[in-house]
């Protein structure tokens, strides 16, 4: 596992499976009398959110807190960011505060890459521009595996604004790694021109792919795309690319319907579809916490902060010489 989680494309099959398996263990935690683990005690996780996304921030916050990490929420509003502080200066501030992990949501593609060059801690991409949203893809894969029992060979149809969707990008790369077959459905205006190089099939005919889909993932469509002439009207979009009850009936019996949220009911997804038993939308939210716990655990274990002696951070249980030496040896081997 890398030190950062910036792109789902960077995850090997072993990495991805390790995250999903770890998340599976964390998923049982909620049933315990004390749904909290001491694992990241004394570690600091900063949520650095340049875009409003309450649901993602809360999910990461819950994940970090269940692992006993200290959480600092740093939002663009009401902070020095609003006064025009650069990302680099913010990064140096977080570095000085000793952030072990920075969870970043940013409107510019690649901002997490830049941040990773400026902080010592781990960087977790919580959505960057129109690039990627890797933890969303991981929780989607986790949800598919729980519902359908496997990912290898699964037929997944992703529908909507592929061009601007970080969720779609992360899903395409991750599902490829996990062995699923992805079909993208969108108006041609909302597909990248180079989409033929992606590990995915493309269709403009939503209804025709539904009988062969195990999973249908609906993406939120932004109203402003209409003014940029990507499609003529919301109604036309909805007719051609929306999932309503009639289209849902074309799915095989076992198929599930996913949506990363927030939904536009009546646009890309009809209300009765969103509330149907096929819908995993609420589960996705629950699973998000488990998957993010897994990511934080796997990234932060073993990541000693160089400036800080390990003895001091482990409190009363100072590591014996044996531990310190093996850690030093491990580091020397890096």
């Amino acid at each position, binding site marked *: 596992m890398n030190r950062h989680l910036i792109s789902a494309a960077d995850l090997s099959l072993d990495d991805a499976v390790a995250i999903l398996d770890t998340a599976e263990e964390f998923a049982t935690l909620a049933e315990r009398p004390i749904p909290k683990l001491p694992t990241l005690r004394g570690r600091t996780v900063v949520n650095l959110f340049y875009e409003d996304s309450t649901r993602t921030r809360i999910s990461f916050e819950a994940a970090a807190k269940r692992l006993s990490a200290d959480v600092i929420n740093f939002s663009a509003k009401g902070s020095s960011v609003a006064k025009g502080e650069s990302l680099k200066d913010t990064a140096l501030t977080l570095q000085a505060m000793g952030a072990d992990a920075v969870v970043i949501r940013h409107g510019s593609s690649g901002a997490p890459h830049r941040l990773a060059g400026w902080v010592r801690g781990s960087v977790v991409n919580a959505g960057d521009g129109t690039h990627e949203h890797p933890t969303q893809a991981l929780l989607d894969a986790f949800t598919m595996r729980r519902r359908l029992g496997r990912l290898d060979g699964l037929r997944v149809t992703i529908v909507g604004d592929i061009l601007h969707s970080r969720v779609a990008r992360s899903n395409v790369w991750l599902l490829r790694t996990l062995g699923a077959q992805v079909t993208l459905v969108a108006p041609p205006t909302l597909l990248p021109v180079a989409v033929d190089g992606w590990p995915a099939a493309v269709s403009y005919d939503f209804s025709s792919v539904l009988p062969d889909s195990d999973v249908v993932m609906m993406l939120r469509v932004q109203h402003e795309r209409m003014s940029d002439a990507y499609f003529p009207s919301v109604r036309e979009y909805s007719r051609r690319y929306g999932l309503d009850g009639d289209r849902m009936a074309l799915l095989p019996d076992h198929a599930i319907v996913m949506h990363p949220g927030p939904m536009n009911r009546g646009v890309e997804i009809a209300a009765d579809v969103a509330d149907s038993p096929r819908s995993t939308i609420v589960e996705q939210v629950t699973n998000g916490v488990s998957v993010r716990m897994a990511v934080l655990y796997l990234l932060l*274990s*073993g990541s000693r902060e160089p400036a800080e002696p390990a003895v001091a951070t482990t409190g009363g249980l100072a590591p014996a010489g044996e531990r310190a030496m093996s850690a030093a040896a491990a580091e020397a081997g890096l």
Partner: protein
Amino acid sequence: MAGISETAGPAPARTGSKSVLGPEEIRRALTRIGHEILERTDGAGDVVLLGIPTRGVPLAQRLAARLEQTEGVRIPVGSLDITLYRDDLRLRPARTLGHTEVPGSGIDGMVVVLVDDVLYSGRTVRAALDALGDLGRPRAVQLAVLVDRGHRELPIRPDYVGKNLPTSKREVVRVLLTETDGEDSVTLQVGPEEGR
């Protein structure tokens, strides 16, 4: 945690290894531990066996099977992964989590016997006690190990020991079990360097 990882560092070459326990000796040690558990807990009526992954789990299952076979006593068995409670998480690469499974009986008010393969520094057991505390409140907690190799770093002692094995810190105790490794054996090997 289990055998090799308790000693920290990769398993050294097999050269210079000395057999400590063979399959028959392991079987006898477990039989003896089983009897001691019955004696010490008045028939094991409220005992839960929790194996510590990896190799504590099959050991716990063998103990339970043995007791059912020879004494007709059914003892609930589960597993208790302590990875998330380790005190050295910062120092080592992330580990794959083992599985925690508490039997239907739960642990509240029960006598929990933790089962592991090797007792060394005692840190694994400390982590297990913390983990137990988050799962419920047992009446008592006891510890059964196949091998106690000494060198404790915490005030922890086993209640049931298959074999006391005096070692130097340079040595590595390697436990192999049929369920996980395809054979039953305990060997003592000289580690490559001091402290590993």
